């Protein structure tokens, strides 16, 4: 039975999970470009890069590559899970997203300047509506090994939340460090990504020279604005909008820096179930 009262949210609080991550200097600050400590040491520790191939995989806690997720357990049958509180302090100002990592791939060429086909494995049923239709699902290129000096524009041909064709894009940053998270725009009127089925799903306008990139599909769960260095902030069940976490949610942090300075993070995650 869903939680419908504040008392219910309080009664359902699970034990807090600590977050301590050591960041690195980021790529140049830019719109639609984040940094994830997914591969950074700390608590939780670093994840390992998937080797699943270009068609990808639905991400669940059972995968060996997701050791850096914020730990959580699914609620008992008949109960739902929601965000109870997320607190974050960082050594530089910026904005933190908490996302559900839903799908990931590997094997995309970083040097190719022709379209690369992707026939995506199905999304897990964890979009905004708890389905695999893609409502609210976004896409990003994530770097697990430092990229090269190329600065092409990149396009992604996808099927949107209503299964209509759409195209997203971003302009690449030079020499993206590990953890660089380049987010695709969506086409006009689109609010999510359901699948990738095109023979030219992913196209770079020129080489990025070197490195290892992954396409990641995700849903944003919460945002914290860290308005000053070393001054913490938090959202709770009320101020977060009480987002639901569907079974097997894989929690990941994405940081939008205000400066490229290496940034460390200290935080806490609390989930409520009922």
């Amino acid at each position, binding site marked *: 039975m869903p939680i419908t009262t504040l008392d219910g949210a309080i009664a359902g609080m699970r034990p807090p999970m600590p977050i301590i991550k050591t960041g690195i200097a980021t790529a140049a600050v830019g719109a639609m470009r984040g940094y994830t400590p997914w591969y950074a040491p700390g608590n939780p520790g670093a994840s390992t890069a998937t080797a699943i191939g270009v068609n990808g995989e639905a991400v669940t806690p059972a995968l060996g590559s997701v050791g850096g997720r914020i730990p959580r357990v699914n609620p008992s049958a008949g109960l739902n899970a929601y965000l109870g509180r997320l607190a974050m302090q960082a050594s530089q100002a910026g904005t933190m997203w908490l996302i559900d990592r839903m799908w990931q791939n590997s094997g995309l060429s970083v040097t190719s*300047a022709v379209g690369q086909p992707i026939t995506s494995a199905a999304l897990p049923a964890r979009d905004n509506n708890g389905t695999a239709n893609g409502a609210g699902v976004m896409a990003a290129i994530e770097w697990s090994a430092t990229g*090269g*000096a*190329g*600065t*092409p524009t990149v*396009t992604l041909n996808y099927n949107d939340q209503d299964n209509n064709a759409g195209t997203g894009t971003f*302009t690449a940053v030079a020499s993206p460090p590990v953890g660089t998270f380049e987010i695709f725009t969506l086409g006009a009127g689109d609010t999510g990504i359901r699948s990738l089925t095109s023979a030219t799903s992913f*196209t770079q306008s020129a080489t990025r020279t070197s490195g290892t990139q992954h396409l990641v599909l995700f849903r944003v769960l919460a945002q914290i604005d860290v308005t000053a260095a070393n001054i913490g902030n938090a959202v709770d069940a009320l101020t977060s909008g009480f987002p639901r976490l569907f079974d097997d949610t894989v929690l990941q942090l994405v940081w939008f820096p205000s400066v490229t300075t290496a940034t460390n993070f200290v935080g806490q995650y609390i989930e409520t179930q009922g």
Partner: protein
Amino acid sequence: MPVPAFNVGDRVTVLPPFDQFYPGVWEITGINPDTGALQIADGVDFDASYLAPAEEE
């Protein structure tokens, strides 16, 4: 079809699929020193296969 050779200062149009994000005529403003890619729009790299000479009016 052979890809034309371009130089800095040439005026070009961008070919699909990137034309929807870079419509119109652009000037090649540089060459990426690390990759050799042609650059328009303050440093966006393009392989020559995605560019065409702009038709002079």
